[in-house]
């Protein structure tokens, strides 16, 4: 690991603060003339819940898509546990230990809940084509392990009762939790949640906050995008505010909440809209 840090010529930042799990360095992504993400520096601390907030179109989801390899950045680099992960493909990023969910739920709709969560462990299992065709003992054993982990994760999100149901047939709130369970099944070090509370009612949001507060006690780091200020204020240890592709503020939730720039760019507007 140390070698890799030095190879990347980034020893200064990464070796000083070992608690930083994910770090982006002047991350930039353009779509044609639009600069969706403009030189974003982000630091995510280990074992904490960090949030990115900002008005619609601020570029939050684009940041996530770049970090998880769905988009390639135009400029800048990003590091995970001190290792450069820029330009890796999504499945490689996942095997490094970053799992994610999507803003508009992306489940394997025609498969059962159990199969969805089992699929999440793909990168953590390795049976190849021949052991699978002949169902060799090694493969059967691995399948059993995959299934046990999946059952555990389903239980954790309270969906054990629905394990044989197709993912498309369960309630919306349950689908969100199923997606989280699928991401957790890969046993990630960093869990990235893209608006986990969107579309949930108050009760479900509250359950989600409690769930995440419990989850963070595992050896895990969480980074989320959130619109719901109750959720953000309730669980975040660190908040980054984005507007028009740029980072405009960051700090503890209370600090950000009272920051005039933030209020002007985001909270003020939101309040007006709601009234």
């Amino acid at each position, binding site marked *: 690991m140390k070698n890799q840090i030095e190879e990347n010529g980034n020893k200064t930042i990464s070796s000083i603060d070992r608690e930083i799990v994910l770090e982006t360095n002047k991350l930039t992504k353009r779509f044609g003339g639009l600069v969706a993400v403009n030189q974003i520096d982000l630091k995510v601390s280990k074992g904490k819940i960090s949030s990115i907030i900002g008005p619609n179109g601020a570029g939050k989801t684009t940041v996530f898509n770049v970090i*998880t*390899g*769905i988009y390639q950045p135009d400029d800048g680099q990003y590091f995970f546990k001190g290792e450069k992960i820029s330009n890796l*493909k*999504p*499945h490689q990023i*996942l*095997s490094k230990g970053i*799992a*994610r969910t*999507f803003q508009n739920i*992306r*489940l*394997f*709709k*025609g*498969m*059962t809940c*159990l*199969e969805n969560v*089992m*699929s*999440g*462990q*793909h*990168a*953590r*299992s390795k*049976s*190849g*084509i021949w052991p*699978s*065709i*002949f*169902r060799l003992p090694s*493969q*059967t054993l*691995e*399948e*059993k392990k*995959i*299934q*046990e982990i999946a*059952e555990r994760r389903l239980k954790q999100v309270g969906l054990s*009762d629905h394990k*044989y149901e*197709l993912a498309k047939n369960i309630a919306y709130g349950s689908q969100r939790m199923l997606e989280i369970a*699928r*991401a957790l099944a*890969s046993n990630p070090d960093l869990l990235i949640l893209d608006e986990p509370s969107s579309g949930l009612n108050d009760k479900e949001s509250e359950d989600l906050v409690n769930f995440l507060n419990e989850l963070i006690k595992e050896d895990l780091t969480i980074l989320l995008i959130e619109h719901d200020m109750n959720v953000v204020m309730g669980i975040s240890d660190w908040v980054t505010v984005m507007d028009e592709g740029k980072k405009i503020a960051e700090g503890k939730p209370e600090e950000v909440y009272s920051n005039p720039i933030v209020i002007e760019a985001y909270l003020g507007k939101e309040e007006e809209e709601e009234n």
Partner: protein
Amino acid sequence: MNINNKTSQSAGIKITNNWFAILVSLLFLLFPLVIKNNYFIDVAFFFGIYTLLGLSLNIVLGEVGLFDLGHMGFAAIGAYTTAILNTSFGIPIFVLLPISAIAAAIFAYLVTSPIIHLRGDYLCIVTIGMGEIVRLTLINNPFGITGGPNGVFGIDFPSIGNLLIIDNSVKFYYFIWVAVGLTVLALIHLQDSRIGRAWNCIREDIIAAEASGIDVRYYKLLAFVLGAALAGVAGSIYASKLMIVSPESFSFMESCMLFCIVLIGGMGSIPGIFIGAAAISLFPEIFQTFAQYRMLIFGAALVLMMMFRPGGVWPRKRGKLSTESMLIKAGKSEI
């Protein structure tokens, strides 16, 4: 709630499914003993060929959702590999079976590698082109080895020394259906493995599949390679049965028929493939008397089916995993 009820119900389905499979196997086993008519046995042989081809396309189209309308091209590679190597060098068919499979697989790997990132209709068009290029190349008789439009003839019967010579309809019938049986077993195992799940994930949502750690490119290629290998086997058996291969057997229309087999049965459904293959291979025989209208009826049947059963006649049911009952049997599961 009624969860217990539900699980026991699905276990019940599982058991009846097993009985059903045994019954069907017995039926296929006894068929030539009861029906002594060679014509019907030959029809059943071609039903088997179409089933094997359908199963091979089902990997690509049914499991992964890749539109492949040039699948007959892979079968052609397998058939011609067998035909040429057998007639030129006298290599026995049983040796050529795996060689044909490997040849078709290598061809599929080389041809689909550059196009594997294409989605939906784009891939469809490129595979049509691929299938046609194979056929036209065979007609143009490169290096004088494919025999042009006449094809290659004089292919041996499959044999192991003097122990087993497959030289009549009944033997060929068993030959193809044993191949189909083994393939079905392998594919059932694959369906409930991490590989089968990865394939289905790609079909359901490619971005989520990537984000769940599935190497999409690898698994798409694997599907093509495996599907082509199976098609190669089918082509090889076909060549040894007819003793002649010619380009017109591998036309675009045949690829479309394979496509229909998968769609009629239901994408990714193994029992569905049997139904689809039966429809495609038995239909023309049954409606032989009004031959000129049979495509009309066939087309109407397809339209009606797509209206009333868009998921296929026998879509794959998901629920309990086949591996699960196995684990419970082994007494290891605490669930």
